[in-house]
């Protein structure tokens, strides 16, 4: 496998980075990077870490990094997590509080609870900003723990960006992928169709029944998409060979939530390099004025509307002869 860390890869311009990933030859990983500068979304780091953790350290080759910003990778804990040498001379590390959450592997429920507890003080967030972040991390990581069967768990990282006043998060796993999971109960012939179903409220891979099972309602990813949409932020879901990207809504436009993610302003792609598992990248703007509780009203209406529409679509029709 080969992965190249470009000059810039954030959710708005993530597509070329993904298309450049080479998943062939899963017995080794080669990491290369832009020579001058690397500026990356945490989603990219979580992906590299998820790939590396599926291998032994001696199967990973990382070229000598030259970019002036190479220390960022060290600070985010990439080399430490993968147990490889960075070749980067020690620097005076910044105090982590208020800036970032280094790459963290979460493999069970207790680790997730600890992670969420420690995350908020690390990012120095006010309660109104912490609420959606805790929500998103909990739902995304629990999805991995319950459905992905990823041997290396969920790889999470996050960073606060002062200029845009945004928290950017990445969660990656090297598990079964969305299509496999959704196909347990719903027919999805492509990875893109599986992502579409996974983002639709009321659809879960654990049952074909409306209302879900005792533990899965099939609304987790829909809630997350709704948080992103209401905050006018990006959300990216990459699984198998498909990519779904919720685009930012313009500030002048009234927010409307849709049960079908394809009705949202978005872009999607297929035939991308195959990602064995699932990756989610999200931005959470702290400028957003909408309180988490107000957003729930909007979500509530959409969930109920979506369930009613699907129910109606299954009504038997009168036969007129």
């Amino acid at each position, binding site marked *: 496998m080969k992965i190249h860390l470009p000059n810039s890869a954030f959710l708005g311009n993530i597509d070329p980075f993904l298309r450049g990933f080479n998943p062939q030859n899963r017995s080794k990983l080669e990491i290369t990077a832009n020579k001058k500068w690397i500026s990356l979304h945490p989603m990219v780091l979580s992906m590299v870490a998820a790939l590396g953790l599926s291998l032994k350290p001696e199967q990973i080759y990382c070229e000598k990094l030259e970019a002036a910003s190479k220390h960022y990778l060290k600070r985010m804990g990439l080399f430490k997590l993968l147990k490889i040498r960075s070749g980067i001379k020690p620097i005076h590390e910044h105090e982590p509080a208020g800036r970032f959450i280094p790459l963290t592997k979460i493999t069970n429920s207790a680790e997730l609870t600890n992670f969420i507890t420690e995350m908020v003080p690390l990012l120095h967030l006010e309660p109104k900003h912490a609420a959606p972040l805790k929500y998103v991390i909990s739902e995304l990581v629990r999805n991995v723990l319950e459905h992905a069967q990823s041997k290396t768990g969920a790889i999470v990282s996050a960073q606060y960006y002062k200029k845009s006043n945004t928290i950017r998060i990445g969660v990656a796993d090297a598990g079964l992928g969305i299509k496999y999971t959704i196909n347990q109960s719903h027919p999805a012939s492509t990875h893109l169709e599986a992502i579409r179903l996974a983002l639709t409220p009321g659809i879960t891979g654990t049952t074909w029944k409306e*209302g879900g099972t005792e*533990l899965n*309602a099939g609304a987790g990813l829909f809630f997350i998409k709704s948080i992103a949409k209401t905050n006018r932020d990006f959300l990216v879901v990459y699984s198998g060979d498909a990519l779904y990207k919720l685009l930012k809504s313009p500030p002048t436009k009234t927010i409307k939530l849709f049960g079908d993610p394809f009705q949202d302003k978005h872009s999607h792609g297929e035939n991308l390099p195959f990602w064995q598992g699932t990756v989610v990248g999200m931005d959470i703007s702290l400028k957003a004025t909408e309180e988490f509780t107000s957003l729930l009203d909007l979500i509530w209406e959409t969930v109920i509307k979506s369930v009613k529409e699907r129910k109606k679509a299954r009504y038997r029709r009168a036969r007129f002869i």
Partner: protein
Amino acid sequence: MIQIKLLSLVGSFAENKELAKKIRLEKIIPALEKKQEVILDFKGIDSATQSFIHALISDILRKYGSEALELIAFKNCSETVKKIINIVVDYMQESD
């Protein structure tokens, strides 16, 4: 009547579905079986995920019907928790 104080069981952010399932199976359902009223006390809980509330009550609504809500009361809920409970309750009844 039994009162279940959730804060000491699940912390101030209620998100652990496994704990929700345990509370449902070990505390709520046995009480409902005896036709006892159950008070779920959310004092000190700032927020919850939809998944947590779903794991806590959806199977009760599925098995006992919405009549079960007459025996369950939700106490000291924050605005966020109230809304999430309402979403799950409505969702389960719409899904019948």
